[in-house]
């Protein structure tokens, strides 16, 4: 990680921020929520707090702008530069600016939040079925007032759930009209307008009057972008007009005709050949949450990192289940210290479950559940008397297909993570995974491919169902000879798994089956407060578990130990 020269940082922890204006691409509530989550990324791992204020000077002033927007560092139209921010300090220092020539989304395409209707502000669901036809955009069919609407479930015909889409006929943003809708036609500068206009403005934002005469009443608001608003081109924010004529042909959808870069565009009048008005059609856009979290890192004092997976790496890449990289955590904690998470203490005899205080589940990252293939064959229980609760410790513990597996001397037990159906087994490991030795050291299931990796001393096996690749030496993964065995594994998303041994860990790229450069690293660089030579390390329900003998330490994704207890009584729930 890097900080700015002189370790520029805030001299107080309780920071304020203010959103000066909003992009018309997203509903205001969606933007506010994204910024709030972006600040929480940093407050979760430091003592910092962030409070939104709505007037006056905040520590971090946030604004959207295009091209030259007042600070001498102009943006550059669509794509390219997305945003920038200034290091901590007074005035413009600490502020964050976002390029409004970009198409701001949550990273996966257009977000159309509805208002009114009966869907409580839910987002549109595209495509949806209305009167037997499928629509992938807001429509005015079925209405006489011309207000665009959409269904918020796949079928309006079936569910009757709907809401109204952003439209200047429904409301305006900002200005001085408290959200009143546009009135068309309206008079401005002596001319009559029957749609939103950028006339009279240099910042390119579309506006309208909210009375019939702006010259007289001076009442106005900014027009929200419709779902078919174009980006860039020469009519930013105007909706596509379908059908439109281009080179004599009629087009009823966006097209890449006429371009070499394959980008989709449309005309914003019915005839491009005569009017030459156009813009790009909405694409996946850029996640305002991810870009804001990065820029707020600058606002707090972090400079760009050269770690590709770090949030502070300068280039944008969309990540679905975002998690701060250890590099980011080290950087921000170097400037502001750690959060106020509980300090680990040695376990005392376990009280009964009821009296144990539940740790605060401060938000957990959700992992996307993918359909997991059924295990190929039901294992046959060996001898019910081989009771897991009689074991003092286990060779390896890991979650496979959503169930915790406890391995010991050629046998294993399962314990579903989500429901309380109790321990199953013991089963013969060799029945389910033929070819494995009796004693294994560690195991993990790859989130993406569902393959299961097993480690025993310096060897590893990769199972897809019952078919196996291996054993092979762990030197093939790039792990040095000094490592005698792997003691645990933590899945990290994006095809990465941390492998632990002794007081160090490596980051394995599961796809190429090679550990990344720059490893091993010391476990307590990041995982402070857990036993350094843990015997079993595994991920369960989004939390990291480090076991030593009878005890385990549980750590949140924000690297705070939030529980210490007994493997047998708390995880296995033995009596």
């Amino acid at each position, binding site marked *: 990680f890097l900080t700015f020269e002189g370790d520029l940082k805030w001299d107080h922890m309780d920071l304020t921020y203010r959103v000066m204006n909003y992009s018309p691409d997203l509903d205001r509530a969606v933007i506010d929520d994204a910024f709030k989550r972006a600040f929480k990324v940093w407050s979760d791992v430091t003592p910092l707090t962030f409070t939104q204020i709505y007037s006056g000077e905040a520590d971090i002033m946030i604004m959207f702008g295009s091209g030259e927007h007042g600070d001498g560092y102009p943006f550059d139209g669509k794509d390219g530069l997305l*945003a920038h921010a200034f290091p901590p300090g007074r005035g413009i220092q600490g502020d964050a600016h976002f390029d409004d020539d970009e198409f701001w989304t949550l990273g996966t395409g257009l977000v159309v939040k509805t208002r009114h209707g009966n869907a409580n502000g839910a987002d549109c669901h595209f495509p949806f079925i209305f009167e037997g036809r499928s629509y992938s955009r807001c429509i005015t069919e079925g209405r006489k007032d011309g207000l665009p609407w959409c269904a918020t479930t796949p079928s309006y015909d079936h569910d009757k759930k709907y809401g109204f889409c952003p439209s200047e006929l429904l409301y305006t943003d900002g200005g001085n009209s408290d959200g009143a809708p546009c009135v068309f036609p309206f008079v401005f500068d002596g001319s009559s307008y029957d749609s939103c206009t950028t006339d009279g403005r240099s910042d390119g934002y579309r506006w309208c009057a909210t009375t019939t005469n702006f010259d007289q009443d001076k009442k106005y608001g900014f027009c929200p972008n419709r779902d078919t608003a174009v980006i860039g081109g020469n009519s930013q924010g105007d909706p596509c007009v379908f059908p439109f004529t281009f*080179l004599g042909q009629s087009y009823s959808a966006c097209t890449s005709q006429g371009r*070499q870069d394959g980008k989709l565009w449309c005309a914003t009048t019915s005839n491009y050949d005569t009017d*030459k008005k156009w813009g790009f059609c909405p694409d996946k856009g850029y996640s305002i949450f991810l870009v804001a979290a990065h820029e707020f890192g600058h606002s707090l004092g972090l400079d760009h990192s*050269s770690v590709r997976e770090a949030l502070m790496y300068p*280039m944008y890449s969309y990540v679905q289940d975002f998690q701060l990289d250890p590099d980011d955590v080290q950087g921000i904690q170097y400037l502001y210290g750690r959060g106020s998470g509980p300090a680990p203490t040695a376990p005392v005899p376990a009280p009964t479950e009821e009296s144990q205080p539940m740790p605060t589940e401060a938000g957990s990252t959700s992992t996307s559940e993918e359909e997991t293939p059924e295990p190929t064959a039901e294992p046959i229980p060996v001898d019910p008397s081989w009771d897991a609760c009689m074991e003092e410790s286990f060779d390896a513990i890991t979650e496979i297909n959503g169930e915790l597996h406890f391995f010991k001397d050629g046998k294993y037990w399962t314990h579903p993570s989500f429901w309380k159906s109790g321990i199953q087994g013991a089963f013969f490991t060799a029945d389910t995974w033929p070819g494995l030795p009796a004693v294994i050291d560690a195991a993990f299931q790859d989130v993406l491919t569902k393959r299961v990796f097993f480690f025993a001393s310096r060897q590893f096996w990769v199972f897809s169902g019952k078919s196996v690749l291996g054993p092979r030496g762990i030197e093939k993964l790039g792990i040095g000879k000094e490592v005698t065995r792997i003691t645990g594994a933590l899945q990290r998303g994006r095809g990465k798994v941390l492998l632990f041994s002794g007081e160090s860990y490596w980051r394995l790229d599961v796809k190429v089956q090679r550990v990344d450069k720059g490893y091993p690293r010391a476990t307590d660089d990041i995982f402070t407060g857990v036993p350094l030579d843990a015997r079993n390390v595994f991920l369960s329900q989004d939390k990291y578990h480090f076991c030593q003998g009878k005890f385990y330490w549980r750590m949140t994704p924000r690297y705070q130990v939030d529980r210490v207890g007994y493997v047998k009584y708390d995880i296995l729930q033995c009596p």
Partner: protein
Amino acid sequence: PLQSKPQAVVTFPGELVGAWSDLELAESYLLRFGYTTEVEAKTGSKHASLGKALRKMQKQLGLEETGELDASTLEAMRAPRCGVPDQPS
């Protein structure tokens, strides 16, 4: 078989005609993000100073350090990104 109608390529109003050459893009990128300075770019051999700046950028962004304007470097230069310079200027 019939030849399909040749693809018309249109210059859309408001778009740069004939965007930058690769070299122009590189020089602008390296200057903007702090990998070189105006003075460095102007003094000495252009090729050497470009190579040095490229190598600095490739190292910072985790690219293969070739000192050359290769495809992955150009791709990186065209990628959407944050406007804060990478090197303190």
